[in-house]
């Protein structure tokens, strides 16, 4: 069973993905996407194993004071610092705030998830983690849907991860103005935009006793503190947002976080340095490769010379047809060879996949 179950699972999932190329039904595609997401989730958990491996190996080296234990110490310190600022401090309290707005549905049926949206303050980047949650608070028909006459409540909440105070956090809140009307706690409509007296409409109550759908000037509930109306929707001014201790430590993944700084200021330059070494390594490898020892080496050297000359202005100055010759070499000779290898590699990959799916290749499984 120790080998049969993994083989069966390999066959089932392998066949599933092969068939995914031929089945276009939506449910099948959704299932395939779900399985791909499972793989990503499992891979995420294996990072714990990776960290454990690093700590074990380098910890052992440090404890035994083996040659080069200082580098192991640097490795572990780097790992711990990035873990601290990237993950651990995320769980400390951050500066938070929230605002609740109530709406009445005045037309049709609204989708709770899409009814109301909020945006972060302009220029805040990713310092604010914004959550918008809309729930049905008054359901006349008790059908769980937001129909005309029902009321919904939207809670806009933020967490702030900045290192300094954000002087004026203004959150625009957008909603479907044809379908929703902001109301106060008691159901009274909130005045949105102050209209000039000449366009004021007389207040009236219809036969059902419902408040009018059009808002007369000066009537209605006052806005909750911080909330105001605009021509495009609502605006929540949360005022100055102070940083938390967590924010002061510049943690998280925000634009001003220490985690991001370490990545941009330490890792990226080192990565660029390693990449830059490639130029020198290519030169030394080319020096070794283009030694004329055999017929093949002669062909390689001559072709390389032609391509190099044709790719620089000197080549074209020497002979005006060099670029054309180079283009022919790259588009015909080189592409043909590359495609031949690609076909072979693709067939090899297909055959290997088939062997693993049907269980002919079992090398990846541990044996008893």
């Amino acid at each position, binding site marked *: 069973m120790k080998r049969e179950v993994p083989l069966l699972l390999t066959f089932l999932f392998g066949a599933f993905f092969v068939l995914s190329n031929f089945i276009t039904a939506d449910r099948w595609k959704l299932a395939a996407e779900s399985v791909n997401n499972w793989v990503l989730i499992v891979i995420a958990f294996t990072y714990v194993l990776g960290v454990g491996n690093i700590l074990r190996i380098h910890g052992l080296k440090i404890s035994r004071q083996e040659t080069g234990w200082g580098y192991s110490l640097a490795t572990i310190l780097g790992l711990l610092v990035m873990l601290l600022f990237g993950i651990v401090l995320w769980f400390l309290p951050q500066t938070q705030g929230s605002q609740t707005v109530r709406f009445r549905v005045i037309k049709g049926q609204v989708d709770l998830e899409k009814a109301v949206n909020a945006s972060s303050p302009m220029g805040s980047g990713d310092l604010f983690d914004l959550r918008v949650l809309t729930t049905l608070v008054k359901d006349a028909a008790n059908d769980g849907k937001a129909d005309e006459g029902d009321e919904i409540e939207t809670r806009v909440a933020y967490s702030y991860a900045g290192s300094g105070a954000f002087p004026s956090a203004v959150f625009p809140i957008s909603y479907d103005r044809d379908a929703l009307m902001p109301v106060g706690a008691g159901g009274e409509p909130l005045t949105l935009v102050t209209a000039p007296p000449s366009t004021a409409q007389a207040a009236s109550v219809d036969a059902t006793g419902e408040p009018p759908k059009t808002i007369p000037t000066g009537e209605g509930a006052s806005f909750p503190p911080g909330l105001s109306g605009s021509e495009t929707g609502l605006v929540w001014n949360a005022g100055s947002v102070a940083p938390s201790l967590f924010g002061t430590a510049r943690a998280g993944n925000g634009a001003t976080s220490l985690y991001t700084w370490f990545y941009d200021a330490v890792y990226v330059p080192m990565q660029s340095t390693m990449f830059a070494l490639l130029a020198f390594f290519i030169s030394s490898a080319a020096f070794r490769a283009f030694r004329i020892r055999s017929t093949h080496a002669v062909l390689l050297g001559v072709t390389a010379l032609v391509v190099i000359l044709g790719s620089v202005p000197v080549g074209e100055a020497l002979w005006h047809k060099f670029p054309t010759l180079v283009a022919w070499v790259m588009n015909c000779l080189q592409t043909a060879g590359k495609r031949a290898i690609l076909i072979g590699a693709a067939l090899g*990959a297909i055959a290997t996949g088939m062997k693993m799916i049907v269980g002919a290749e079992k090398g990846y499984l541990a044996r008893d």
Partner: protein
Amino acid sequence: MRGFAVLAGIAAGAGPALAAEEAPWSYKGVLDFKLPILLALVVFAGLIVFMIGVAKRNPHLYIRPLAGITAIEEAIGRATEMGRPVIYIPGVDDINNIQTIYSMVILEKVATMVAKYGTPLLVPTASAFVTPVAEETVKQGYLNAGVPENFNPNNIRYMSNEQFAFTAATNGMILRERPAASLLMGSFYAESLLMAETGFRAGAIQVAGTANIHQLPFFVVACDYTLIGEEFYVATAYLSREPGLVGTIKAQDYFKLILLAIMIAGALGATMALNWGLPAWLNGLAGFLNF
């Protein structure tokens, strides 16, 4: 189905033009047969099954020797004589890449060989997922050789997921440990030449294998032996000589012959079509293949 209308058109000598946005072999929006691909897959699978049967009946089927695969055992022998370790780099991609999975299969064979000779085996990995798989694989190799007590889990080291951090760490390992043999098997990108050149400077004999064709030139130039594309995928067949695996190699070769014949016919047909025009039935066949 519209696709069968195409076939009927071919039989009638016509070659209906296919709308680019419409799948010609679809069925009620649920199935997309992609008939040419499906046919190719079925033929290939059938060839594999047939050739595995042939290989089982005739265990001495000829496959041309690959210098790179023979060199793996020689490299390990060299490392044993010099008293230096072997380093095996399974690529930088995650376990969901077929090359990484196959690299693990080769790793088991290599681990069995080094375990028999008592040579240390170092395996730096670039993925947290690959690390435990590599550990189990190497452990299995030592079990196969009958010396499980010699397995050292500290030789399988997770370096980093970041490409050049992994490269820097692996290069450091190569320069410190001075392996006598360096095996680079799997999916590689820009770091391939960095690691291969470092291995050369450490004096290691290097055998590389990858199906990433853009890195092959660097390996060919910097390594002593290179397994190119499909040669990488047949390494275990060469090392184990199992009939099932040898039969697959033969099936691949015969399928390539079929593809070659179709390509030559296609090239000739396209040339004829340009200069003299094609007969109607051939035009229809071209439409079928050009779905």
